[in-house]
């Protein structure tokens, strides 16, 4: 049935074909920073997935039931980012109380999740592609899976970088960007699989 097929289509295109990190260049700040170790990457990926899915549902509801009836679509950027920021701050306060170990590991990156480009981009794309609620959730879930995939791939490679000879000039960030370039070529190959 074509309903499920179009949902799968959205999921695959968000996670692989139009990967948010390698093709659309979103959320690079945390991508570069949080991939020093595998559990950092997974911890960050998990939190971002949760926040992205919840934020995209929240912003969909706010958009459809407040902005559209009053024809104030132009407020979408600021209303979305405000809801996302407040939502992330609530998650931060909750994490600090309930799971202090994860809170310590996240360090500076927790408030930066609020400004993670991907979450706002997902909310905005839900509007421009005028998805319904189910499609929007699948889209945000696909996008965050793509993000976690990118984090895990790079974290894996970066952990092995310690045992490898790198020319001194490329030490630190340049080598990471070179690796990202080659992974991006691989992801570009996937671009045709989902319309």
């Amino acid at each position, binding site marked *: 049935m074509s309903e499920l097929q179009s949902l799968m289509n959205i999921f695959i295109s968000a996670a692989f074909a139009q990967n948010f990190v390698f093709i659309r260049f979103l959320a*690079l700040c945390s991508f570069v920073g949080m991939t020093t170790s595998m559990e950092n990457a997974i911890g960050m990926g998990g939190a971002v997935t949760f926040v992205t899915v919840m934020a995209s549902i929240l912003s969909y509801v706010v958009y459809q039931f407040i902005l559209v009836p009053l024809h104030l679509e132009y407020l979408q950027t*600021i209303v979305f*980012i405000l809801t996302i920021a407040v939502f992330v*701050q609530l998650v931060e306060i909750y994490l600090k109380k309930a799971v202090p170990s994860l809170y310590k590991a996240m360090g500076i990156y927790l408030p930066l999740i609020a400004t993670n480009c991907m979450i706002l981009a997902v909310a905005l794309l839900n509007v421009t592609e005028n998805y319904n609620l189910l499609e929007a959730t699948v889209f945000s879930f696909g996008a965050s899976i793509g993000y976690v995939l990118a984090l895990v791939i790079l974290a894996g490679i970066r952990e092995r970088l310690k045992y490898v000879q790198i020319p001194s000039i490329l030490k630190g*960030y340049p080598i990471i960007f070179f690796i990202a370039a080659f992974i*991006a070529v691989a992801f570009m190959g996937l671009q045709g699989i989902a319309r």
Partner: protein
Amino acid sequence: MRNLINIFKNGIIKENPVLIIMLGLCSILAVSTSVVNALGMTLAFSFVLIGSELTISLIRKSIPKTLRVPIFIVVIGSFTTIMSLLLQAFLPDLNKALGIFIPLVVVNCIIIGRVEAFASKRSVIESLFDALGMSVGYGIVIVSIGAIREILGNGTILGYQVFGPNYNPALFFILPPGAFLVIGIEIAIINKILAKPKKVKQEG
């Protein structure tokens, strides 16, 4: 006065937002397919950065601690929306070229970073100079990457043919992997210049 110039110079070389502090990469890699786009993005970016840093440092005393992030976000968000409305009205083709990256200026990590680290602690004039320094620093990087990618990937600069008509451009540089490569090279160059050589420890 010297201190202010220092802050301005700081933003360009010593603490270049992109190459040293490694922030704001999303917009740089995505938009720098041509110099015109890069200039447009710098224009939008500096408008929002200067506006936000000034407003935040004006009201920095009266921001309660728990509301710090939401207030920053509302101020930056409103400047971004004003900028995107103005762009849609007066520069429609730039708006189409930059597309989704105009609203994404609000989550540009440099603006949030500078506002939190600098503007919420320093006086208005210092924030102004810091914002100017950062915008120039950001502009230099994005325009240089834009130029490289446009010349190699498209064979044109600002739209004019550079290598003659039958040069088939190395498309690689317009596509996403090229962007990663170019910024990697640029960081390597800056590392080489600014790196402190490991000197042998002198005894005695």
